């Protein structure tokens, strides 16, 4: 019988686009080949175009491209009625198949060490592949075409066993290398990543090889179809790596892969199913999915970019904060050191000036010289007071100021201070009056420090008021004593009220009229707060005077 007659007698259906045909035995499984083809290409494409510089992405792209060619070739073998096409694509599949394994070896090297195998390893792979390249096109590769029972399959030559042998060898290479790298990795997360990757890759190759080897050995090619499901399994492992461990240095991969998987799924229904209504419905769904998918990916990318920017800013802020704390600590240290060094000589100067003043009086020195020495003494006192304030502040800020716990009468202390300042007020032509409840108010605290606070308030009031009255009121409340110093001075602008107790801050009116360090009120408030009290200021505005209030707990 002529071969042409046998071919006609077999009566195979024709194929369109090489892969669509009635010859297919089990259409569902057959067309499901398309899904791994599309999905694997999409995954590799997204990874590669997401980060082209990252070596594993490049290698994975090549591996998947080879795998896709393999799937396409395999699809042709199922569909085509042409002996030439069967022979040609069968050979191509036989060449590509071990190349997928070679690419898998490159991939595991790239994934674990971000570099390709050594030149020796690459050379060995090439030598292993050389017989395949040379002998597959000969009759050692494909012996011929099998017409037994109208089978549409090639009769394979001896090379096919060599191909399977090196595939097993390369699979063992991958497993061995993967486990060795896992053993070598120091980090537990790194170990898990490598294990997951190796197992995923091995499962893919195993299912890929097993289907073909069994199909070839048992001459039952339907088993060969199992192999195709290896890649979705591997895709699953990859997805875990991507989402869980942010492998492959690609951003927003989970959203992209979700959308692209849906596109692939709907797209494959659209192209495979050809049933009028369903076709148009899937067409519309695909269109809508593409639009919403792009929007989703963009929004996720935008969000991720924002999050990354925030993380960078947060890190910068934290670093700046640490630096500031270090600077603040060294500043306080310096301040404390400097003021200590200043106070001792200033005290000596003060005593020296006192002695000089006495001598001048004894020797009846002229008035001008005495005034000059008196002026020097006052300036020295001011300087000592500023240095003391600075020292107190640095102590408070370093947590080094320890308060005394002594019992004293707050009212009595206030009344004494008011008495002391009456002469100073009279000299300036001011009235200094004390009003309120005359009741002893016993409290426990540091009398010296609180005296410093009250002196500061009354002194300020007298200093800044040019005419009128300074009123010190003392009132008793439940377990609290309220002491207020009100004056008819220049007042404070509303916008300055909030900052008045900050360090080195002085009101505009104060700055214009008097010299000062801007430390007094800051220190006063700190001391009051350390006594669990409260200090506040009120002023109706510039030119309307001001009132400072101190509230302290009493027994």
């Amino acid at each position: 019988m002529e071969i042409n007659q046998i071919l006609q007698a077999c009566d195979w259906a024709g194929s369109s686009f090489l892969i669509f045909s009635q010859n297919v035995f089990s259409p569902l499984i057959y067309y499901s080949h398309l899904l791994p083809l599309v999905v694997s290409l999409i995954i590799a494409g997204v990874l590669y175009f997401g980060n082209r510089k990252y070596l594993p992405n490049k290698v994975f792209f090549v591996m998947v491209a080879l795998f896709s060619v393999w799937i396409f070739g395999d699809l042709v073998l199922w569909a085509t009625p042409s002996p030439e096409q069967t022979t040609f694509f069968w050979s191509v599949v036989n060449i590509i198949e071990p190349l997928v394994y070679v690419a898998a070896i490159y991939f595991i090297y790239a994934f674990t060490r971000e570099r390709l195998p050594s030149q020796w390893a690459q050379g060995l792979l090439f030598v292993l592949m050389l017989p395949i390249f040379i002998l597959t096109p000969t009759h050692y590769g494909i012996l011929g075409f099998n017409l037994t029972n109208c089978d549409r399959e090639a009769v394979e030559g001896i090379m096919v066993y060599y191909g399977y042998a090196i595939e097993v060898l390369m699979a063992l290479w991958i497993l061995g290398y993967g486990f060795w790298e896992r053993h070598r990795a120091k980090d537990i997360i790194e170990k898990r990543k490598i294990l997951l990757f190796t197992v995923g890759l091995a499962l893919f190759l195993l299912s890929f090889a097993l289907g073909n080897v069994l199909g070839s050995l048992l001459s039952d090619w339907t088993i060969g179809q199992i192999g195709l499901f290896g890649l979705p399994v591997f895709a699953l492992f990859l997805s875990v790596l991507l989402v869980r461990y942010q492998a492959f240095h690609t951003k927003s991969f989970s959203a992209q892969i979700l959308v692209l998987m849906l596109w692939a799924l709907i797209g494959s229904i659209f192209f495979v199913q050809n049933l009028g209504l369903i076709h148009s419905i899937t067409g519309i769904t695909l269109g809508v999915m593409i639009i919403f998918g792009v929007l989703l990916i963009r929004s996720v990318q935008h969000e991720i970019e924002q999050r990354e920017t925030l993380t960078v800013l947060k890190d910068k802020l934290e670093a700046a904060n640490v630096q500031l704390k270090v600077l603040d600590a060294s500043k306080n240290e310096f301040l404390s050191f400097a003021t200590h060094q200043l106070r001792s000589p200033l005290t000596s100067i003060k005593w020296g000036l006192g002695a000089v003043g006495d001598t001048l009086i004894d020797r009846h020195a002229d008035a001008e010289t005495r005034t000059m020495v008196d002026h020097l003494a006052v300036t020295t006192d001011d300087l000592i007071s500023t240095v003391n304030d600075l020292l107190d502040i640095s102590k408070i800020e370093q947590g080094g100021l320890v308060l005394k716990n002594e019992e004293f009468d707050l009212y009595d202390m206030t009344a004494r201070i008011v008495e002391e300042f009456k002469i100073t007020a009279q000299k300036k032509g001011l009235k200094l009056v004390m009003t309120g409840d005359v009741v002893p108010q016993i409290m426990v605290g540091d009398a010296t420090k609180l005296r410093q606070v009250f002196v500061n308030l009354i002194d300020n009031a007298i200093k800044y008021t040019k005419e009128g009255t300074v009123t010190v009121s003392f009132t008793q409340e439940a377990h609290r004593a309220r002491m207020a110093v009100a004056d008819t001075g220049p007042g404070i602008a509303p916008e300055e009220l909030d900052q008045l107790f900050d360090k080195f801050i002085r009101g505009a009116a104060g700055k214009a009229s008097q010299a000062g360090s801007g430390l007094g009120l800051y220190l006063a408030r700190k001391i009051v707060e350390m006594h669990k009290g409260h200090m506040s200021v009120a002023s109706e505005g510039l030119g309307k005077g001001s009132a400072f209030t101190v509230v302290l707990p009493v027994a």
Partner: protein
Amino acid sequence: MNDGEKINLVDHTDQGSNIITMFFLIALIFSIGAVHYRVYVKHTINFFLTEEEINHAQPLGSLYGN
């Protein structure tokens, strides 16, 4: 290992691997080309009609060759 050594290592590998990748590509093209030549140009496809022919590698004949 300092950075300098690392860079050298990567460059070295890349250069060598580029050459071997090229070999792979040339071999692949050559191989597929040879298959194409055998199947479509020389038409040397043997046909087997029985299992016995297959087992003894004695084809029924070639469709185009003879």
